[in-house]
């Protein structure tokens, strides 16, 4: 009787998750808790980091069966097996793997974005392009390190686009095995933009340049705003077809907004739809960071390298934007404040706010926010194009 009791209890213990925990599981749970702390207490992009880190936490509890990495490691992936045996996160992850969630998020971003400052000052598109040096500079760096393949290097480089959905979209296409660390690095650094950018911006500009007051932007008519998404869609997709999923959805969202005749659709896209998709995306991207991956030889080192390269990507992008801003300032005869160049790294609208803040430290009468929004939204288009180019070149 007593023996049966002991046997049953020990059986339950052995079947439980505790008995199956490995030290790596503890490490992953600890990392998840650190990110939860950063999200909840420090408020680093909480809307994304809470689902991401909770997904990481839940997927690393053994025997839960929420996510089965071995199903995704099969080459080619057996989607029928995933539908038959996959857990909840496996099924939700299909939306990431098939490239559905990031473009849907771009739809919502398109509704929320006002391209007015960009239309009124089209030159700011150049600043959005210059900041993409961060992406390609990091690609060089990652290839120089030597322990990444071409596809992995391209996925790491896209962190420099400072655009979460773009980074996730490209990584799932090129190097899905690195999705967890890349997404975490991208979103963490986006939250750290107010810390990373100001020292670089101040180091590269003089106080006089930072104090430059820019001419007021001209008002943009409704017709121009409606034509913008249509023209950008046609032009960009004709030139770089591989950027079509991101650009078309972004511009569709913007057309919803500017046309003014589909209020219900734009409201859904910018609220309910983007929130639902963000929950699924965050949860499953976090879940891909599993202990099984960490146990692969060299993965921890790669994750560390990704975190380092991500920082380089952001810094190079910021520096390139500011330097190009200086160049444009010189050409225009002192009419452009170089600080708006740093906003070219996307990270909407955080990077534009940083330009405004740093500008106001030098000249309290200066309002750069709307001027910085031009390069800022141009950065979103620029990084989507860069992602398309990388996909075409190395994919």
């Amino acid at each position, binding site marked *: 009787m007593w023996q049966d009791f002991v046997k049953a209890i020990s059986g339950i213990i052995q079947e439980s998750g505790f008995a199956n925990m490995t030290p790596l599981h503890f490490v992953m749970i600890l990392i998840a808790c650190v990110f939860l702390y950063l999200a909840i207490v420090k408020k680093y992009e909480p809307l994304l980091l809470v689902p991401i880190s909770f997904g990481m936490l839940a997927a690393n509890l053994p025997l839960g069966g929420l996510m089965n990495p071995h199903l995704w490691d099969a080459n080619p992936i057996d989607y029928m097996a995933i539908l038959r045996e996959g857990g909840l996160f496996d099924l939700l992850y299909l939306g990431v793997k098939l490239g559905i969630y990031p473009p849907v998020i771009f739809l919502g971003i398109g509704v929320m974005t006002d391209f007015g400052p*960009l*239309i009124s000052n*089209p*030159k700011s*598109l*150049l600043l*959005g*392009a210059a900041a*993409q*040096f961060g*992406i*390609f*500079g990091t*690609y*060089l760096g990652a*290839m120089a390190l030597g322990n990444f393949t*071409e596809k992995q290097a*391209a996925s790491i480089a896209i962190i420099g686009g400072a655009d979460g959905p773009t980074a996730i979209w490209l990584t799932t296409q090129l190097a899905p095995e690195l999705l967890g660390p890349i997404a975490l690095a991208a979103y963490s650094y986006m939250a750290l933009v107010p810390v990373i950018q100001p020292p670089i911006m101040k180091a590269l500009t003089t106080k006089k340049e930072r104090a430059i007051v820019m001419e007021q932007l001209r008002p*943009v*008519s409704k*017709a*121009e705003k409606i*034509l*913008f998404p249509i*023209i*950008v869609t046609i*032009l*960009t997709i004709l*030139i*770089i077809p591989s950027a079509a999923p991101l650009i078309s959805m972004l511009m569709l969202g913007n057309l919803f907004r500017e046309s003014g005749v589909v209020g219900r659709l734009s409201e859904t896209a910018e609220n309910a739809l983007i929130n639902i998709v963000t929950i699924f995306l965050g949860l499953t991207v976090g879940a891909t960071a599993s202990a099984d991956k960490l146990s692969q030889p060299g993965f921890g080192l790669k994750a560390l390298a990704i975190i380092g390269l991500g920082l380089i990507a952001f810094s190079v992008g910021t520096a390139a934007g500011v330097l190009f801003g200086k160049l444009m300032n010189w050409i225009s005869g002192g009419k452009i404040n170089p600080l708006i160049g740093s906003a070219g790294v996307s990270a909407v609208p955080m990077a534009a*706010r940083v330009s*405004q*803040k740093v500008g*106001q430290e030098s000249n*309290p*009468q200066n309002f750069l*926010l709307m001027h910085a929004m031009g390069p800022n939204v*141009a950065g979103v*288009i*620029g990084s989507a*194009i*860069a992602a398309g*180019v*990388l996909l075409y*070149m*190395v994919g």
Partner: protein
Amino acid sequence: MRTFEVVLVGMVVVFAVLILLSVCIKIYSAIVSRISSRKNGSGNNDNPVKKNVSETTVVNPSPVLSQPQQGLNPEVIAVIAAAIAASMGGSGSDIKVRSIRRIGHTTPIWNVAGRNEYILTRL
């Protein structure tokens, strides 16, 4: 070698596409503004805003209204007049705007700093 190729092609394409886009925006903006100005030009008589302003000019000849080349358009004058009326209270019908002049900055720097800080918390 291949790495440099990716970087070079990548940057050139990104720049080329965005430069092309900015040129296109400039062109279509010019076209749109030309079309809209032509429309306004032909429909001058039935434009209620302009009519009102010209009436005001007749009733209250003011130095600013008669010198539109100074950069103050009727909308700005209307906004300034409305703001004065709102802050003084009452219906505003007894106010006459005779002149609008830009004056130097007189707000104490601490007020400006406080205002900026408040704006930043709202950004």
